[in-house]
């Protein structure tokens, strides 16, 4: 029996609307589950400013009729993400005061996009982070880093899978950021 999309939608049994998923301001690094293994990388970058440049700071996407809310504490979230640089050879120092460490390269980080969308049962997390630096070796950086990852929700499309999708996207971006940041520390 052929039906239009509208007809099928009208005939569908009433299914309770899913409640929003709230992500937490954390960062779980699948690429480096042990973090920096207790070591403090010699290369340090001083992050003087962390800016929220998102057009949509509250909602990261809507999947299967469920809204995905971004972590409420933006600063804590970004600090957790920047902590992932340690496992990649860069120590992120959160010091707005330039006098605190004048010889260390400084950076301004802007989160431009953090979103999750779905295609069938695959969740795709995407982030775009802009990095602007001063000091250090070589030319200062002024570029964006894009990270993305796909997670398949075989068993559960729960908050853990969504969190994992955005964590993976950040990890992808951190990989490229770390390469360029370490170059600033080169003697």
């Amino acid at each position, binding site marked *: 029996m052929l039906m239009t999309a509208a*007809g099928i939608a009208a*005939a*569908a049994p009433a299914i309770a609307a*899913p409640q929003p998923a709230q992500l937490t301001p954390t960062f779980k690094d699948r690429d480096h589950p042990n973090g920096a293994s207790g070591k403090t990388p010699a290369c340090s970058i001083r992050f003087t400013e962390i800016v929220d440049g998102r057009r949509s700071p509250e909602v990261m996407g809507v999947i299967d*009729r469920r809204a995905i809310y971004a972590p409420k504490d933006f600063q804590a979230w970004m600090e957790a993400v920047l902590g992932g640089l340690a496992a990649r050879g860069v120590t992120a120092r959160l010091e707005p005061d330039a006098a605190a460490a004048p010889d260390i390269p400084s950076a301004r980080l802007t989160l431009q996009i953090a*979103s999750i969308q779905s295609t069938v*049962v695959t969740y795709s997390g995407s982030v775009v982070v802009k990095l602007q630096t001063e000091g250090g070796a070589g030319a200062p950086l002024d570029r964006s880093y894009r990270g993305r990852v796909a997670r398949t929700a*075989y068993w559960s499309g729960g908050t853990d899978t969504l969190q994992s999708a955005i964590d993976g996207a950040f990890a992808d971006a951190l990989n490229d950021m770390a390469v360029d940041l370490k170059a600033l520390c080169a003697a």
Partner: protein
Amino acid sequence: MRILVHAGVCLAVAGACAGSAAIAAPSPVVTAEMHGVPPDRAVQVLVAQSEIKSNINPSNIAVATGGGLLGGLMAASQNASRTKKAEALTEPVREALIDFDVDSLAQNTTRAAFAQVPWLQNATVAFSKDSSPVGKSGALDTIGASQVAFVEYSYDFSVDFAELRVVAKVEFADKAMPAAATKPEGRVNRKNLAYAQAITTIVSLPVPTDDKATNVSLWSADGASLARAALTTAFAKMEQLLPRTLALTTEDIAAMAAKTNKKGNVGGFAGRTQESPGTGETLLWGPGFVWYRDRP
């Protein structure tokens, strides 16, 4: 298991369709009586996505293998692989469109369109990224109007990246709880809507190829000039078709859907061919207008 639950729901719906009585659907037309009722109608523009979406041809392995756990797992794996490739392909265009504000374009388009509709000219226009039922239900409560006209936009590429598509879903929902609803979100269930229609505008590459990567490179070249032009064109056409859709009568729809109109298919959308809007343009009635242009 999520994949089998999806399949189970689809089978249950098909079964219900086979034997059930007709279920009320929202009106596809705004009657004259609805124009001024309620007098305090508000508008909310919704754009859930942050960047242009990609598309895939979903795997049919599950069907081919007769369903079951193995078929479901294989299908999910194949879909994941296709999604990863599509997402990777889309990246250059997204990069080049990073500063293109589709959210503002959607809002401006809606304001300009509704300014042409006498009974919507004074409606306040709000914006949200939360197009979920819970989000819409919350909007019905916070906006305060007796009825909200939700205009939900989505934009993506066709599977072969030859076309860029924009879809607008227009739905009127009442703030008052329907008699049979048990939860507030029931107010935005399709069966409880006062009105619903959809409009699709599609813009093709001037010279699309059979290769997805080549098509993407065409869209993203020169700071994504073609993609920017296509989005601008698609929303500009939406500005024309929104008021035209809201002015349709039952007779108009019957005439457009008549079987004497030839069948057409553009950008993955099928319908009955209507008068040609112009050179290189096609207009179908799907239901809902489907407009296609062969270049930005």
